[in-house]
């Protein structure tokens, strides 16, 4: 279709024609967008309804807990550790100019718990877990394993998607909580051993500035990101096109769309919590 339009434009350079083609293209894009939105909404509502309706598959959910939660620990832990460390180092270079070194503990703990731990963990998990989910379910789609599930009277939403969405939504907050602790500890290590701060006053400053809401908002964000990552992985895998290329595209789309959505929803949730 697109190539037809291009050819038309090349052969008939009439201004009206060009304008009409331009409008047609906009219209088509909007229709495609609406179609995709509709399909996604149906997919989401179907997924959520199966999360809450029995029968459940506890064994499968447990396995996803391991895959999504436990095996992501090293990645999330390393990310949090080095983020906390670099945060202390960078804020020191800035704050020491104004003799405001005492603010470093606060900057580290607030940045880590409110923003960096949930967002970076979300992005890392999107790359690790979202891609894996999309590739796995996409391959199952392409090799007709999903059709096979249906013919064996097993609902793929219940069997494949619900366990992943449940595990993603519940595991990411736990990962982020661990990331919070490791991230703050990373800042602590650098401040104490490299910048020569007093350990007890650093910890007091950290505790003084930290409020429950900082942690809670981060965990709520994490749950939302976990939901986004697992759902986008499932969605793109489930609608994968045929062949190796189809699965590859599904994987890419899953990672890209969940990363973007994480950043968008991070802004929205921050607005909700702190304004």
């Amino acid at each position, binding site marked *: 279709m697109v190539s037809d339009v291009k050819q038309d434009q090349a052969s008939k350079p009439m201004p009206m024609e060009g304008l009409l083609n331009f409008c047609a293209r906009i219209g088509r894009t909007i229709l495609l967008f609406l179609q995709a939105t509709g399909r996604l909404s149906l997919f989401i509502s179907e997924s959520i309804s199966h999360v809450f309706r029995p029968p459940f598959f506890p064994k499968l959910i447990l396995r996803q807990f391991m895959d999504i939660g436990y095996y992501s620990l090293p990645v999330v832990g390393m990310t949090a550790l080095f983020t906390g460390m670099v945060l202390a180092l960078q804020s020191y270079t800035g704050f020491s100019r104004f003799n405001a070194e005492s603010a470093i503990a606060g900057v580290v703990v607030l940045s880590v718990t409110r923003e960096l731990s949930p967002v970076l963990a979300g992005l890392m998990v999107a790359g690790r877990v979202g891609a894996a989910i999309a590739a796995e379910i996409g391959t199952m789609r392409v090799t007709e*394993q999903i*059709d*096979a599930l*249906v*013919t*064996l009277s*097993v609902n793929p939403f219940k*069997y494949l998607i619900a366990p992943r969405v449940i595990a993603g939504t519940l595991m990411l907050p736990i990962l982020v909580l661990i990331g919070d602790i490791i991230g703050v500890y990373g800042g602590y290590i650098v401040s104490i051993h490299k910048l020569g701060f007093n350990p007890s006053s650093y910890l007091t400053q950290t505790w003084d500035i930290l409020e429950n809401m900082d942690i809670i908002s981060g965990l709520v964000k994490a749950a939302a990101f976990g939901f986004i990552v697992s759902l986008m992985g499932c969605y793109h895998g489930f609608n994968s096109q045929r062949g190796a290329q189809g699965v590859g595209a599904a994987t890419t789309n899953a990672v890209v769309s969940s990363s973007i959505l994480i950043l968008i929803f991070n802004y929205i949730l921050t607005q909700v919590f702190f304004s």
Partner: protein
Amino acid sequence: MTDITPKLELKDVKKSFGTKKVLQGVNLKINPGKSLVIIGGSGTGKSVALKCILGLLHPDSGSILIDGQESVGISPPERDQVMRKFGMLFQGAALFDSMRVWENVAFGLIQGRGIDRRTAYDTALDKLHSVGLDESVAQLYPAELSGGMQKRVGLARAIAADPEIIFFDEPTTGLDPIMADVINNLIVKSVKQLGATTLSITHDLASARKIADEVAMIYQGQIIWQGPVSSLDHSGNEYVDQFIHGRAEGPITDEIKARA
């Protein structure tokens, strides 16, 4: 003929994807215990017809009757009940690669019907025996099996729950002629044992002749000929003749050329 309720009946089933009309009014009838094979070239709508019957795709119009009961547009629980009558052997076997062979065969029993694992294991072994595989294979993963063995496991899985209607999607594609014949024999044998009605789609005529009671030819989204397998060679239909003799010249290619 008229007083028997057909096991499976398609009435004017239509399905299009975008502007592409794949099924343009398919009419088909299979009587209980009979084996119908649909033949036809690639892209003529064989697989789509099958997926419509299975409920994997929703036809745009027309009706699909199973035991005289409408199955288009039924509720999910009713669909579940209908699915229990079905068994399906997929083209690429479609085995679950994260599970062992016996778990694949027993999957429908354990997850779909809630039978306990021990009983399901015994049934799975029985079914594996009936397709010529033994206990040592049961513990392997599908990736460790050859194509022919995967097909056999797929067949065992399809018949595991003693279905009333079994569907075969290109059962012999991708197999060597000897293994293809082994699979054909297994299909005939297991269908006889179950007394099941079967619907197969294939473009392998040797396979069609072996497993079919009746043959139907699909062309451009419609059934253009249906008759007993014995009359396949003198159908009097030019399209069928071209197809079964595999000639490059004939009405089918003429129309393709005319459209291009």
